[in-house]
């Protein structure tokens, strides 16, 4: 088990290097062109960050579940997409196929969490965090035992190709991920804003007692919401393995990124999640360009600390 997110795991590392090489510029030297590349890359990767964080924005942001195992579920979904892809399914279709399975998985996970922690009250928070860390560890090791520690990747028509925009060569896999990520985030935001259950979920986040007094069952709504939050991880996990190869301990690199995005967004804000994802993506890729990959892992956590210290309610705080 090696350490947490190494710099070489950043999804944009190839992009920066090839882009710089093509222009005959050394990475780590400032140039306007490289900065522009970094911003474009950051924008693409940032939407992808929003997509992998949006489930946590529901489970942690709206439901207050200390879901530290979210990135582990995400990596699990990537391996699910990998298995289906081995059988000839396109990774994005595979991600969609995983959704019902993950929805049911989420229902059970919340039920277990509720029965053992929320209902007992007391210092549930402390043990809840410990519980989810245990779950994350178990998932990580089970993946290692089944698949080994090697990196895995998927095959699809759009992987390995790139298109030229101006004099910038953008990998098609990042563009596809960008499109799917935007769609996914928008779909979930619409679901929460427009549908009856979506509104019920936001209501339970605002005032659980009031909902109970109206005769609704807040636990059932929360369970449903947690199921949705987990189901979204199907396509998000597919994106993770489309953007870059995945290995079993990758979840550790995404603890910082997902929580940074969700907290910066303001707990439970969907539009905030998108904006925060883009901010993180752009800042990360600029630092990657100017200072090299070895500084990348600290950025999301440093931004998270800064947000917690300066503006704990986030950009769009409720």
């Amino acid at each position: 088990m090696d350490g947490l997110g190494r710099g070489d795991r950043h999804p944009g590392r190839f992009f920066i290097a090839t882009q710089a090489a093509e222009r005959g510029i050394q990475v780590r030297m400032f140039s306007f062109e490289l900065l522009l590349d970094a911003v474009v890359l950051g924008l693409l990767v940032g939407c992808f960050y929003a997509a992998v964080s949006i489930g946590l924005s529901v489970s942690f942001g709206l439901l207050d579940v200390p879901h530290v195992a979210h990135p582990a579920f995400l990596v699990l979904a990537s391996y699910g997409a990998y298995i289906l892809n081995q059988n000839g399914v396109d990774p994005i279709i595979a991600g969609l196929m995983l959704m019902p399975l993950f929805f049911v998985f989420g229902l059970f996970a919340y039920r277990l969490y509720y029965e053992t922690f929320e209902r007992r009250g007391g210092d549930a928070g402390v043990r809840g965090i410990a519980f989810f860390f245990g779950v994350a560890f178990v998932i990580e090791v089970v993946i290692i035992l089944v698949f080994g520690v090697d990196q895995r990747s998927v095959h699809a028509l759009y992987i390995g190709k790139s298109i030229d925009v101006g004099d910038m060569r953008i990998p098609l896999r990042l563009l596809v991920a960008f499109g799917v990520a935007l769609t996914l985030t928008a779909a979930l935001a619409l679901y929460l804003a427009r549908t009856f259950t979506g509104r019920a979920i936001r209501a339970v986040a605002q005032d659980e007692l009031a909902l109970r007094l109206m005769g609704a069952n807040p636990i059932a709504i929360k369970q449903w919401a947690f199921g949705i939050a987990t189901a979204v991880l199907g396509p998000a996990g597919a994106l993770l393995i489309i953007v870059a190869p995945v290995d079993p301990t990758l979840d550790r690199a995404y603890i910082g990124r997902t929580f940074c995005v969700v907290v910066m967004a303001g707990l439970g804000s969907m539009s905030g999640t998108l904006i925060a994802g883009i901010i993180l993506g752009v800042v990360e890729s600029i630092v990657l360009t100017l200072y090299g990959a070895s500084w990348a892992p600290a950025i999301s956590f440093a931004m998270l600390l800064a947000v917690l210290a300066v503006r704990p309610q986030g950009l769009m705080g409720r």
Partner: protein
Amino acid sequence: MQQAERGWIFWTAAALFVGAAAFATLAIKNEYPFFAGYLILQFMVLATAWNILGGYAGYVNFGTSAFFGLGVYTAVFLFKATGAPLLVQIAAAAAVGALLGFLVGLLTLRMRGIFFSIATIALTIIIETFIINWKFVGGATGMPMIRPPATAPFDSYIKMLFVNGAVMVVIAVALARFIQGSWIGRGLRALRDDELAAACSGVPTLKLKLLACVISGALMCAAGAPNAMYLSFADPASAFNLNYSVSALAMSLIGGTSHWIGPVLGALLLGSTQQLLTVTISSEVNVLVLGLMLILFVVGAPEGLLGLFRRMRARFSGDAGGRA
């Protein structure tokens, strides 16, 4: 009266413990038992230190690896720069750990619950990243450490580290025991149950939290210092491994957080199981068992082994459901 009597028993047991450890190093020739035993002692210190903040005050510190790794690298830096002996390395690490603990204590001003936990993970990664980019101590690839010859009564360095570890366990446990029984422990428990109410009733919450963080941090860092010499190697990925954080927390929760003996029991149980599994099966299975036991205890026995013992005793003394 009873307090003084218990103190007498505690210190006799502690002296016997260290004495037995020292005697074993003279009597047993094979190095392996000490090599394995050292790890268990190290985890006893880590779990005990974690419990001072996590158990008594209810702040879940996930930055055990930050303190541990910083301890490792304080030792590495001192050894490379000045060739300082082991005890100096440990003392310096304790000082650095106290300083970092103070900073973490300041974090508690603004954060509680999961935010505090995430912030301490953040600290781990940020410090690790700085070490990775610091060429003097070897950067990401790490640095081999050449052990100096062991000092007088010991015939090998590992045995010396083992006795040193036993002494550190006694120091850590004595500190935890003192805190638990004194006004510090009462204050910490009060602020764990309700921080606002504690502050309103005149408990100096900030001072107590800072104190707990400083002591806990100094112990964790000190526990990390001998690790570079133990492995004869130091690299950021293993020094700052998240497994230390989860182990320290799991051992405390499994043992029981309400009493100083809890983390010691948890470290003994989990530490020896892990050693056994790593040797007989694989290190992956060892992490799997760590995760499963953590889940099992958190769900099934929220008060750990201590809670189980208490419940059993209540049942046997005919006091049905006595502690409910």
